[in-house]
């Protein structure tokens, strides 16, 4: 592994290569493509949360002048494919197909039941009104705990709780997971105090600013291109092809620029519809969602109910932990119950524990991944309970975490022993941070909590082409959401020993580069960066061969140093080093263009820990929370581009604070979301938050050539509990449920 020393490019923070295009409006996002003869698609969505479709007829819409295609569930093939779709909460191919377009039943308000394509958007809207649908309305399943009861109304009569043996009867519980170690009774017997609480976290949306959008252009052979905003165009191609019964080679997917995803754009919604409408109409079809569509039919993340019991000794040592957490899956299975239970106790070394998690169907939109899926909800319960234990023991909240902190060699609750990790380093940094050392402002509360995410590797590909002048072209397949083109450029420049500005990175479409999994799981800088680094090393190996050929020496008589090939000591000292430009300029004579490539399934992702500190004040008359300060400390491994690492930390903190303080889906008794817009679903705006202070801890990951761990997920985990702990301390009473909105806090204040 390369040590975090003497890097020339790693650790710099150059302006992102796509920055000017984005601030000037030149960058093209999902809805920006316009093609000749393009028509416009619209979706008819269910007005009911749970109903059987008894009749549907699109013929009147299709008969309208200017309407070129109309489709509904019967236009799609029957799919019985239980293989998994990529991404947390992806579910099965069959479920993804039924989520894209309802067949015999609608399972949530906003579920797609038909779609049209017409010459203009207004005509398409009018055509939707001509579609005839008759429903048999069913009782919606809306309450998480009630849905788990034996006698609950069933969302899906064919769902049996998954296990090696088929359950006796169908249920809304799709999956159950459990982790346990030690002897709970013995652990609780050692405790001096116990904390036992129930916590609720609401359903929340990823809240990306750019709504879903795509353009499909399919020819008469059924082949063509799809331009879309996505976190992973290769996986979008794969699932679209499966839903429509096509070969993957029939479809070229091109990733547009993307205005946020956070996990929510790992899922197809419009793309299969646009492809089918384009194929039927013979024209390019553009489809875009409204914000209301985005809220009602995409994302969100699970609401949860968690119960936890902690046993703690007087010295702060946790002797036992017992937890239960149920996750709302929405209409199809795939809630992040497993990562939830795997993260809940992850920062701590606990001898005796048990935790059970449930994946529960309800008549709500199917959940999708959202930054560190499952961890914010699960760790909210644990971190709040631990704060209460610290209060009960009159212990410093950082000290109680330090007493229990996992370190290298600790057996993680999810199984393996941790390799080198940076949790204690984060706690140590927090303890001496100026924002922790200063007095708590009068009337405010100070909250502390920890966060954790595994990070992942998965598959990535990269190609490097060296131009004749020695400048560098990198082609890779990870859509750039958080500045990855800059971090790829930095790693390529560092490896090749060239200037950052001589490297250009392009996100290739599905026909111009090798497969890449989604940009998600904090994997891109780690895994695609590893592919880019290996492709550069491929170039270096070729350069050494060419130089040896040029000099007439053996291959082992040359070496690479600082961007040049030089002779090894003892070989003709008069040989002048050959730069990348020298070798590229002479490439025609030595074997042709210089190219490197790598396709990998990256292993060895490094876990990332965080500690957050906040001071919050509560207005006792209005219930409004003021965030006075917020400090995010995180082990990022080596920070390739520190400014973008800080951006990820600040963005995750802002999203976590929004979820903690205000964001929630509000459903009426019929299962209709009543706040499907940014006026009523309130994400934080700049005036709501102070500058988020950051401190990057760099404990390099030994499994990555530059020590990368991955950054994007962990920052959203701790803010929920950090906020709860601050508000609870400010009020002098524990508030267990989120959001910490004025009505909830006024209720708490009023007793």
């Amino acid at each position: 592994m390369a040590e975090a020393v003497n890097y020339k490019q790693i650790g710099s923070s150059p302006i992102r290569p796509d920055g000017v295009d984005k601030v000037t409006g030149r960058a093209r996002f999902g809805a920006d493509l316009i093609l000749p003869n393009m028509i416009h698609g619209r979706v008819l969505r269910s007005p009911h949360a749970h109903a059987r479709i008894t009749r549907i007829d699109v013929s009147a819409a299709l008969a309208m002048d200017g309407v070129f295609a109309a489709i509904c569930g019967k236009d799609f093939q029957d799919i019985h494919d239980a293989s998994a779709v990529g991404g947390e909460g992806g579910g099965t191919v069959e479920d993804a197909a039924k989520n894209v377009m309802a067949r015999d039943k609608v399972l949530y308000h906003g579920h797609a039941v038909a779609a049209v394509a017409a010459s203009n958007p207004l005509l398409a809207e009018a055509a939707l009104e001509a579609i005839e649908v008759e429903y048999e309305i069913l009782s919606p399943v809306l309450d998480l705990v009630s849905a788990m009861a034996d006698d609950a109304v069933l969302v899906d009569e064919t769902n049996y709780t998954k296990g090696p043996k088929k359950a006796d009867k169908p249920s809304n519980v799709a999956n159950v997971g459990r982790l346990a170690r030690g002897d709970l009774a013995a652990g609780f017997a050692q405790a001096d105090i116990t904390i036992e609480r129930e916590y609720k976290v609401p359903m929340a949306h990823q809240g990306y600013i750019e709504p879903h959008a795509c353009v499909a252009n399919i020819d008469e052979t059924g082949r063509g291109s799809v331009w879309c905003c996505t976190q992973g165009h290769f996986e979008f191609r794969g699932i679209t092809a499966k839903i429509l019964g096509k070969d993957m080679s029939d479809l070229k997917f091109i990733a547009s620029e993307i205005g946020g995803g956070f996990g929510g754009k790992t899922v197809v919604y419009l793309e299969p519809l646009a492809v089918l409408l384009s194929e039927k109409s013979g024209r390019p079809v553009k489809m875009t969602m409204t914000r209301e569509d985005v809220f009602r039919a995409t994302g969100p993340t699970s609401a949860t109910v968690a119960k936890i019991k902690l046993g703690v000794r007087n010295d702060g040592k946790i002797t036992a932990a017992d937890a239960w957490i149920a996750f709302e899956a929405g209409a199809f299975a795939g809630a992040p119950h497993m990562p939830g239970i795997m993260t809940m106790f992850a920062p701590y070394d606990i001898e005796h524990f048990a935790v059970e998690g449930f994946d529960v169907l309800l008549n709500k939109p199917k959940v999708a991944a959202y930054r560190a899926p499952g961890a914010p909800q699960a760790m909210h319960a644990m971190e709040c309970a631990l704060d209460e234990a610290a209060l009960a023991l009159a212990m410093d909240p950082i000290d109680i975490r330090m007493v229990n902190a996992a370190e290298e060699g600790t057996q993680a609750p999810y199984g393996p022993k941790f390799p080198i990790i940076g949790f204690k380093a984060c706690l140590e940094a927090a303890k001496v941070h100026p924002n922790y050392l200063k007095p708590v402002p009068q009337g405010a509360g100070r909250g502390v909590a920890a966060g954790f995410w595994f990070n992942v590797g998965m598959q990535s590909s990269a190609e490097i082409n060296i131009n004749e002048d020695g400048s560098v072209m990198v082609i890779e397949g990870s859509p750039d959401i958080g500045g990855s083109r800059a971090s790829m450029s930095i790693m390529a420049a560092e490896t090749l020993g060239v200037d950052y500005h001589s490297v250009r990175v392009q996100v290739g479409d599905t026909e111009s580069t090798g497969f890449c999994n989604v940009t998600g799981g904090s994997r891109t800088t780690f895994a695609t960066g590893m592919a880019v680094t290996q492709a550069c090393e491929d170039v270096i190996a070729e350069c050494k061969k060419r130089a040896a050929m040029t000099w007439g020496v053996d291959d082992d008589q040359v070496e690479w140093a600082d961007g040049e090939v030089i002779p090894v000591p003892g070989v003709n000292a008069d040989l002048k080093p050959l730069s990348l430009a020298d070798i590229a300029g002479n490439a025609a004579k030595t074997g042709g263009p210089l190219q490197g490539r790598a396709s990998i399934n990256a292993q060895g992702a490094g876990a990332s820990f965080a500690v957050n500190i906040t001071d919050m004040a509560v207005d006792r008359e209005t219930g409004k929370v003021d965030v006075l300060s917020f400090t995010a400390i995180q082990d990022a491994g080596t920070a390739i581009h520190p400014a973008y690492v800080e951006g990820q930390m600040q963005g995750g903190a802002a999203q976590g604070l929004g979820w903690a303080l205000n964001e929630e889906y509000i459903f009426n008794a019929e299962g209709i979301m009543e706040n499907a817009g940014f006026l009523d679903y309130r994400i934080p705006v700049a005036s709501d938050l102070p500058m988020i202070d950051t401190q990057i801890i760099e404990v390099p990951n030994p499994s990555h050539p530059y020590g990368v761990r991955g950054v994007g997920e962990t920052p959203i985990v701790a803010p929920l509990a950090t906020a709860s702990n601050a508000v609870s301390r400010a009020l002098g009473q524990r508030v267990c449920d989120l959001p910490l909105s004025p009505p909830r806090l006024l209720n708490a204040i009023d007793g």
Partner: protein
Amino acid sequence: MARVLLPDSFSAVTGDVRELVSRALTYRELTTELQNRWPQLTELIARSAVAIDGQIYQDAFLEPLKNDSEVVFMARIEGG
């Protein structure tokens, strides 16, 4: 011999066996051994990730196992 830890989700198939040792020299040899003993584990193994000596693999195949290796089956993780 490698020490192998099985998750709770395997227990419906493996009963009380939560931990075992194996002479397998690779991950493939280990999974073949487990599937021969418990054929119903095949699908569960396919849906699992595995940690070998602390390194998590989403798609392990021929990874070598050492005499003192620790192999832990666990749920797959992807993320958002």
